[in-house]
Each structure stands twice: as structure tokens, then as C-alpha cells.
């Protein structure tokens, strides 16, 4: 494999993957770098919106796609996935002063989610009278929440938690409940990709030799998610 693989990533997902001072970083990104090293893959990173990742795999514009992609049945029909590298659920972020206490309070409210995310499907199924605005990325949604333009952002729980502790401190509050089931998160690959094997092998190795835990400590302060 001399040819570098093309990696589509969505750098609007702190602390998993984001752009800091012109360099990509974050837990998922660092993990991918280790995997690539381990599997002997050279790669080129291409930034794209979350909604573009799976179509770009389908059209073979990229070889690997990641952000924090839930491994769902529907997605497995069109792309392949690596083994999961963590589990995550969906949380709801509301403004600090909001009266919203539970997920049930969200019905008839204005909620935000990311285009193409698993949360969109969940909202459509479970909050039929909520008004849904779909954003291209989480940052835009956070800004909309700050501006009071939406009442809640539904997104990956860990990302929301990180935001609530950092930038969103004293502005935003995370509901305790998880919306729906938790999903495994993995690297998305083209259907029938020959990269599934080497990536899974590398991931196994990295989990075993402690590198995975080191990264986890670096980004979350404790092991596991």
C-alpha cells in the first residue's frame, strides 16, 4: 500500500476530532493516527461535513470516514465498519436557564440536530411535535443554542458533555437522560473494503498494548468512555 488512503473526517466534534491552530487533533483522530502507523498506512485527510462522509464512501471519493459515526443497521447496508472503538449515546443540551428538565419536555420545542446524524431519525420518531432544525455541524448548533435560536441540541452525549464543561460552561446544561439506545462507534469504510482487516488488527493491537488507554486518559482523564 504505497498509495495513501484518503480519509474523510468531520473536524467539528470536540474532543473527538477538531481543528486546533491548523492541525487536526482529538481522541478519534489520534487513535486513527496510531492505527495508520500500526497498519503501515499513509493517509491524506479531507475535511467534510458529517452528512458527506457516507456518500463520499459510497462514491469511493474517500477510503475511510470518521467523526463519531454510530454503527447502525441502515448504514451497514451501504458501507462497512471497523470494530467499534467506543460506545456512545445521545444527549440533549439545553441552555443553563432553560426550564427543560427531561427529554419529554422537548416535544413542541425547537430542537437542533446534525444533518445525516442518527439523532435526526430519533427525533423524527420520538418527538413528533418538536420543530427540528438540521445544522451542518455541531458548532453551528451550539452557537444557535447560545443565541437562543433553538431550545435544545441533540447530539452525541460525550461531545455535549465536553462542551458543557468547557466553552458551554455557565451557558449550557446537559440533561441526564440518554435519548434512545447507545451505539458502538467505528471507522466507516467502503463496502467490501480491503482495509477492514488491517484496521481491525491494528485496533486490537493498540487496545492490548495500552496505547488506547493512554489516549483515553489524555482526552477524557480516565479509561473507557
Amino acid at each position, binding site marked *: 500500500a504505497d498509495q495513501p488512503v484518503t480519509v474523510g473526517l468531520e473536524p467539528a466534534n470536540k474532543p473527538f476530532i477538531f481543528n486546533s491552530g491548523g492541525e487536526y487533533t482529538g481522541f478519534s483522530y489520534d487513535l486513527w493516527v496510531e492505527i495508520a502507523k500500526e497498519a503501515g498506512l499513509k493517509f491524506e485527510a479531507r475535511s467534510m461535513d458529517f*452528512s458527506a462522509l*457516507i*456518500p463520499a464512501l*459510497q*462514491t469511493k471519493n474517500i477510503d475511510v470516514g470518521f467523526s463519531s459515526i454510530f454503527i447502525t443497521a441502515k448504514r451497514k447496508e*451501504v458501507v462497512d465498519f471497523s470494530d467499534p472503538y467506543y460506545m456512545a449515546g445521545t444527549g440533549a443540551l439545553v441552555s443553563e436557564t432553560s426550564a427543560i428538565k427531561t427529554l419529554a419536555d422537548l416535544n413542541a420545542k425547537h430542537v*437542533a440536530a446534525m*444533518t*445525516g446524524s442518527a439523532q*435526526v*431519525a430519533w427525533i423524527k420518531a420520538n418527538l413528533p411535535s418538536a420543530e427540528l*432544525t*438540521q*445544522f*451542518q455541524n455541531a458548532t*453551528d448548533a451550539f*452557537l*444557535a443554542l*447560545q*443565541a*437562543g*435560536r433553538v431550545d435544545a441540541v441533540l447530539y452525541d452525549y460525550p461531545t455535549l458533555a465536553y462542551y458543557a464543561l468547557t466553552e458551554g460552561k455557565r451557558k449550557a446544561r446537559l440533561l441526564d437522560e440518554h435519548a434512545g439506545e447507545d451505539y458502538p462507534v467505528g471507522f466507516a469504510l467502503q463496502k467490501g473494503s480491503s482495509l477492514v482487516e488491517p484496521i481491525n488488527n491494528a485496533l486490537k493491537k493498540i487496545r492490548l498494548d495500552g496505547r488506547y488507554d493512554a489516549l483515553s486518559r489524555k482526552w477524557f482523564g480516565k479509561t473507557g468512555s
Partner: protein
Amino acid sequence: MTFDWSAFFESFPGLLYGARVTLFVTLVSLPAGLLLGAMVGVILTYAPTPIASIAQVYVGLIRGTPMVVQIMFIFFGLPALMDVRLDGLTAGIVALVINSSAYLAEIVRGGLLAVPRGLQEAGLAMGLRFGQVIRYIVGPVAFRRMIPALGNQFVIGLKDSSLLIVIGVGELTRTGQEIMTDTYRAVEVWFAVAIIYLAMISLMASLLKSLEKHVRIA
């Protein structure tokens, strides 16, 4: 890859809903943009230098930045700056009004300047006030000649409404994207989206043509 006709047809109901939003946004923004643009255009053409300069800066700022940036600024920046809350649809309409007003102002200015000076002089020589000359002669003559350019700007406005995709307004392009992320049938969806735009724009163009014919162009 095979073209999946059922995916193509199944996308239509959703897309047509998006097309309604596109039309709504366009039909609300453009008359407002024309009004604002006409005012700015008249100022550009006839106001004394200091006021005209302000208008020039306004037009220059808008024409000198991409509309996507304007949309982002209005949607994400304005609330922070001025404590106003605009929902996406409103912000999008505001962006389209402001953006089109700058281009329309230039069209109006060009139209006014293109009216032969002789008409203005003939009006003045009859004893009309300057305001009357603009209102009854230069304005109407300019307007008739501007119709093609205005129509063109309206078509541009309809297409520009697709940029509201970046702030999540559920217009046609956005709807297309959402359907694509649901069905993962890119070719079929974008093909359908393109067809709907073509239809709307052809319709608009032929309405404008018949308007042009109706209004006698001198």
C-alpha cells in the same frame, strides 16, 4: 451504478415541500430587495456625495463578500452583536434581501443613467421640477428597460436561496441533502433537485418574458 427510478420518484414529495420553501423565501425576499435596492439606487445616482458615499460603501461591502459569509454573519454574528434572535428562515430572508438589494441598486443606478440625458432636459425645459422628471419620465423609462436585468436578478435570487443550506433552512437544496443522508441515493436525489430548479426557473423566465412583452419597451 444503476439509476434507481423508485428512489428518484420517492424523493419528489419531500423535495416539492422544499421547493415550496424556496419559492416562499424567494418571493418574499425579492420584492423587499427591490424596494431597498431602488432606494439605494436612487441615492447612488442623485444624492449629494456624502450620502451617496455611504450607499456606495454599503453596496461595496455586500458585493465584495460571498453571500455564504453574509449568511453566516447574519445568522451567527448578529445575535451575538445585537441581541436579536433571528430564526434561520428570517435570517435567510434578511440575507437575501440585503444581498439582492446591493445588486439591484446597481441595476437601478445603471438604468437611471442609461436614460438619454435629452429626456431629462426635455422635461426640465417644459418647466417640470427635477423630482417630477425623475418620477414621471426617467423612472418609468428606466424601469421598462431594466425589466430584463431585474428578471435576471430574480432568477439569481431564486438560485441563491440554495445557500441557506448552510444555516439549515429547509429549502429545496437542503431537503435534497437531507433525503440523500437518509436514502444514500446521491445521483437520483440531485438529479431530481436539479429538475425542480430547472422547472421553477423556466417558469419564472417565461413569466418574465411575457411581462416584458406586456410592458412596452421604448
